[in-house]
Structures are given as structure tokens and as C-alpha cells.
């Protein structure tokens, strides 16, 4: 019988307290790993939101506010960029491409982005990845719409279906542009960025659905209400029914329409005539710029920030992303600190348990001494007990961590767009576990030292 099995059997003899300790450690390990995994993934999905864009230009506001509204679709841009300013800046030397962005409308809680075809050729995310189509293609005319993957999945939309874009942000916007149904011609592949939750329409569609009357204040929802709300919702519902007549997928609310006849529209490419995508917009929310050479970036940025026509702001997304993450840094540090403290508390719990039971075990130690165990053996026995408990705690905690990830994955993806990978432990996470093991071993040294001195002083005489 070796030392480890002796330590194991001895621990098992005190299993209620040992198991409780073990579970405490396991839960703390799970917490630490989960928080760290979410933190890492959030950070990387955050940094991957936009790439390859040299400048983001919008009406003058805060750097972070512009980044949030243009890239993350968070918050509202209060002011807009005049179209002629956009046209002017676009002509500057060194500008390789521009992507106009017009935000402020929504479809069932999903942001609607008005843009042009350059979006599909020049927008990059992650590690300079292009947007790719799961089904269909980019829009060719003003009546076509391209969906992010989450939008299509969540609303169960398919190619060829017609949808209505509502005015203003929010899920239950009162005013609907129900005179402008649009055809879904493309569904993008998942990107893990806000693009997944965006409905992309041509700029001209934004312009058309507001009509010239609304153009003066396109984002003032209150002014636009000109019919009773339930009627608006009703008319929208009618439209949805209409959609389902042409479509086989069952939506439980419309079950009576869902079976049988019409299967042909699922992911069939939609043919159409190319048309004007831009129209005559008066203003856009922001635009993205790419340059032939990074050398132009600073110069153009300075020019834009000093532009005479209207107050504009140009930001470098990489810099502002870092700035924004820096603001969140303290929060993530606190989270990390908390989870580390929880681990330390659980290890201290183990220390307490080991020390508390040690006095009752002096007989056990004396018996071992009498058969010739050296104080050093006693020391190793106690230390290996702490190591065993910590090791099992880490293993169980890691298993719980994977279960937690598995459970949290869909929720985090749906709620926050953070895609958690169920991958094996990263080297960083293994290092964390190693740190916990080390800390557990160090904790084990305290009762071991005490047992060492007990065994020296008690000898073979049984004190308890």
C-alpha cells in the first residue's frame, strides 16, 4: 500500500467533510474557468467585430459613442452626416473604398442597416474576413433585403419571403412602413458579430420608406404615429399571414397556414432586375473608410475632424475598440478578482477542514509512527491528502465547467452574441488549474507541518 492510497483511504474515512470541501473547490474552479472563458471569448468577439476599416466617420459626438452606434448598433446617433459631405470626403486622395451606413430603423427588434453594395465587397470582420452568403446573394435593387444569420434563424425567414421594415428602433414600434414590403434575397453566414443581428437594406429603401415628409426628422418616432397602434400591429400581422401562405415552415402562431402546398421558396435563389441602390439620400448615419495606404489615415482623419461643411468625427476603430475595452477592463478585472477570491476561500475551507480533523487523527499518526513511519512520511501523507482533494476538485470543477458552457452557450449567443467554444482547455486555463493545484499543495503544507510536529512530540504515545 503506497502513500497515496493510504491518504485516499484515510480521506475517504472522513468523506462527508472531505467531499464537501471537494465540492466547494470544484464549484470555485468551475466559476473561475467559466468567467475566464466568457471573458476571453467576449474580448475576442469584441475585437473581431470590425477589421480592415481605417476610419469610421460620423457626426461629431464621442469616439466611443460613434463606435457603439455604427459598429455595435448600440445607442442612437443623434446627428447625421450630410450626403454631400460623404460624397465630398469619398473623393479625397487615397480613399480606396467607403461604406455608407444608415441606421435607426428596426425589424422586430433587429437593427436595420441601409448601405450599398460596397458593404458586401469591403466590410471585414474577425481576421480580415469577408462577409459570405449562406444562401442567396447581395441586393440588386431597392426592394431587396439581406439578413444576418441570427435574424433569419430567430425569425425563421427564408429566401423569397417578403418582410416589412418598421420605423424607429425597438420591438413594438408603432409605425410600420407597411407599404414597402421587401424581398429576402440573401442570408449571411454567421460572423459572431452584430452583423448577424442586422437586416441589411439598400440606402434607397431607407429613403423611400421614410418618404420625403419624414426626412427632416427620420428618427423621431413620436411624430410619425398617424394611426392607432393596434391597427398598425394588425396590418402587420396580416402581412405575416400573407407571407406564410407562400411558405411551408410552421410558425406555431400560424399553424393553420403552415402545412402542405408551398415548399418551393425555401432557399431558392431569387431572380431580379438590378436597380438603383442609393437613390437620393439627404443624410446617412456614418460611413466606413478604407485607404490605399495606411499613411493617408491620419491625414484624412485630421481633415475630416476639421471639415468646414458640418461638424464631423473620424475615429480609428482599432484605437477606439481598445479604449472601449479599457473601460470594461476594470469590470473584467473585478470579475477575475472575485473568482480568484472564491478559489482562495475554497482552498482556505480545505485548510480549515484538514486542520480541524487533524487533532482527531493524532492517534492515526501515532500508529503510523509506531510501525516505523518517519515524521517525513506523516508530512507527505498530509500534503498528498490536500493534493488529492485539490486535484479531484479541479477535475470535477473542469467537468462542471464544460457542463456550464454547454448550458450557457445558446443563451450567451442569443443574448449577447458571444459565441462560446466548447473547445478543450486552453494553455491559459491549464495554467490557471496548475496555479490552483499549486495553491492547494501550499495549503496542504500547513496541516502537514503541524502533523509533523505532532508526530515528533507525541511519538508513539497516543494523546487523544
Amino acid at each position: 500500500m503506497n502513500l497515496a492510497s493510504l491518504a485516499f483511504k484515510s480521506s475517504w474515512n472522513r468523506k462527508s467533510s472531505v467531499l464537501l470541501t471537494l465540492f466547494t473547490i470544484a464549484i470555485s474552479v468551475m466559476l473561475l474557468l467559466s468567467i475566464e472563458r466568457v471573458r476571453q471569448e467576449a474580448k475576442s468577439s469584441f475585437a473581431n467585430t470590425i477589421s480592415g476599416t481605417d476610419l469610421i466617420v460620423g457626426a461629431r459626438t464621442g469616439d466611443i459613442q460613434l463606435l457603439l452606434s455604427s459598429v455595435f448598433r448600440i445607442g442612437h446617433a443623434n446627428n447625421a452626416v450630410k450626403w454631400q459631405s460623404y460624397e465630398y470626403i469619398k473623393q479625397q486622395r487615397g480613399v480606396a473604398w467607403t461604406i455608407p451606413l444608415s441606421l435607426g430603423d428596426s425589424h422586430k427588434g433587429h437593427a436595420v442597416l441601409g448601405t450599398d453594395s460596397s458593404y458586401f465587397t469591403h466590410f471585414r470582420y474577425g481576421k480580415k474576413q469577408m462577409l459570405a452568403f449562406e444562401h442567396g446573394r447581395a441586393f440588386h435593387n431597392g426592394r431587396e433585403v439581406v439578413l444576418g444569420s441570427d435574424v433569419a434563424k430567430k425569425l425563421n425567414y427564408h429566401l423569397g419571403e417578403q418582410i416589412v421594415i418598421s420605423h424607429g428602433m425597438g420591438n413594438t414600434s408603432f409605425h410600420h412602413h407597411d407599404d414597402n414590403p421587401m424581398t429576402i434575397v440573401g442570408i449571411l453566414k454567421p460572423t459572431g458579430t452584430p452583423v448577424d443581428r442586422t437586416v441589411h437594406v439598400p440606402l434607397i429603401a431607407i429613403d423611400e420608406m421614410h418618404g420625403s415628409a419624414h426626412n427632416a426628422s427620420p428618427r423621431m418616432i413620436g411624430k410619425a404615429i398617424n394611426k392607432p397602434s393596434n391597427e398598425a400591429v394588425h396590418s402587420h400581422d396580416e402581412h405575416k399571414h400573407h407571407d406564410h401562405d407562400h411558405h411551408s415552415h410552421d410558425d406555431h402562431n400560424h399553424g393553420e397556414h403552415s402545412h402542405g402546398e408551398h415548399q418551393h421558396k425555401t432557399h431558392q435563389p431569387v431572380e431580379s432586375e438590378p436597380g438603383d441602390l442609393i437613390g437620393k439620400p439627404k443624410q446617412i448615419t456614418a460611413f466606413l473608410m478604407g485607404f490605399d495606404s495606411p499613411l493617408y489615415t491620419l491625414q484624412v482623419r485630421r481633415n475630416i475632424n476639421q471639415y468646414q461643411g458640418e461638424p464631423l468625427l473620424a475615429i480609428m476603430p482599432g484605437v477606439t475598440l481598445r479604449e472601449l475595452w479599457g473601460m470594461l477592463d476594470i469590470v473584467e478585472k473585478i470579475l477575475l478578482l472575485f473568482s480568484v477570491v472564491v478559489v482562495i476561500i475554497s482552498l482556505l475551507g480545505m485548510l480549515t477542514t484538514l486542520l480541524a480533523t487533524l487533532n482527531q487523527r493524532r492517534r492515526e499518526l501515532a500508529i503510523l509512527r509506531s510501525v516505523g513511519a518517519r515524521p517525513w512520511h506523516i508530512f507527505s501523507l498530509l500534503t498528498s491528502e490536500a493534493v488529492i482533494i485539490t486535484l479531484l476538485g479541479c477535475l470535477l470543477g473542469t467537468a462542471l465547467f464544460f457542463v456550464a458552457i454547454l448550458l450557457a452557450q445558446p443563451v450567451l449567443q442569443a443574448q449577447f452574441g458571444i459565441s462560446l467554444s466548447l473547445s478543450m482547455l486552453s494553455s491559459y486555463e491549464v495554467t490557471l488549474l496548475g496555479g490552483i493545484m499549486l495553491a492547494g499543495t501550499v495549503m496542504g503544507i500547513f496541516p502537514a507541518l503541524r502533523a509533523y510536529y505532532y508526530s515528533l512530540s507525541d511519538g508513539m504515545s497516543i494523546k487523544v
Partner: protein
Amino acid sequence: MIEINNLVFSWPKHPAPTLDIAELTVSQGERIFLHGPSGSGKSTLLGLLAGINAIQAGDIKILDTQMRQLSAAKRDQFRADHIGTIFQNFNLLPFLDPIENVMLGCQYSKMRKNKLTQSLQKSAIDLLENLGIDHTLQAKSVSELSIGQQQRVAAARAFIGQPELIIADEPTSALDADSREAFIETLFNQAEKYQATILFVSHDHSLAQLFDRKVSLNEINGAAQ
């Protein structure tokens, strides 16, 4: 077997010595009844014999080995190799079964393991059978055994691997009168088989007559009283 000469021992922070033995000799195979009431320095003497405590002055020679010349680690090894111990009660580790408890006797001694003529487990089982612990008792958890049975398991652990010296520290004090004599008899039988020396410590005079020789610690210990 054991030779003690001018042994003086005092505990730290105690000005007067606890133990002062001019001479004590025990020969091989002898069964000694060491009579020591509490306070007579009994535990101290056993600690020195077993090599738990270091000798301060004088000599203890066991099996021609001067204990004073051994380091603490060597004394531990010496104890593992040559001395079997039986305590008053609760001799056994509760988380090991009776057989494992017996096997523990060879845990720290290669020498004792090498003396076995068969496997460690088989030797433990045989020894238990000899001491009256049959296989149904062997299968029980040690807490289910009676105190007398536990003491027999402890005796088996002391004897396994044939150590030359058995130190029994009041092993019968928790037993009733009948089991006492039966236990001592078993002890003697086993000791005879292995030619082991028995140092039996007790304050119960009635057992003294069973032994070859009776030594009163009060009489030989100059530091007592």
C-alpha cells in the same frame, strides 16, 4: 537483546530528569513484565527504546545496535525493522480492513517484508488465523470487532515480519480478566514461534506471574519520586 546503562533523560523545561536507569538487561526471547504506574517514566522509557526520542546521556543497546549513534531517520527505520508495538486500545486504523492493518506492520520495513516466506497478504491472513481471527472476522471492518479481537489484530501487526522485540504498552487494560490471560497466552505462543522478546508494560500485578521476569520501573528508575 536490550542493554541499558546509565540512562538519564530529562524533558525540556523540566529541571529534574524523568528517567535515571543505572542498568537493565533483557536477553533474547525473554518475556519481561515491566511494572510501571503512571508517572514512573514508562512512556519516556518506551519512547527511548523505540527510538522516537533521542538519548541524552547513557546508552541503550538493542540487538547490538547503539541507539545513541543512530540519527532520527535511522531510529525510525530501526523501529520499523525490529520492533512491533501494541498499544492499550484503538490500535487499528479505522479506514483499513483487518488484513490491511496487519500488512501495515511491514509498510515501512523492507527487512520485515523479506523475512516473509509467502506474500504479504497471505502472511497477514495466516497470522490472523493463528491469533484467532478467522476469515469472517477478517472481512469485517475493524470498528465491528470487539476490543479483544482488535487487540489480536494489533498483535498480528506487531508480529508480522518477525521483529525481534515486541513492545506491548498495557495491551490488556481494556480487556476483561478472562480475555487478558487468553490474549497473553496467544502473545506468548506467537513469540515463542518467532523467538521474539516481549516487553510487556502494565500496572496490573496479577499478570506478573505469567512472565519470566518482573521489573518494577519504580525500583530501577532513580529519578522516580
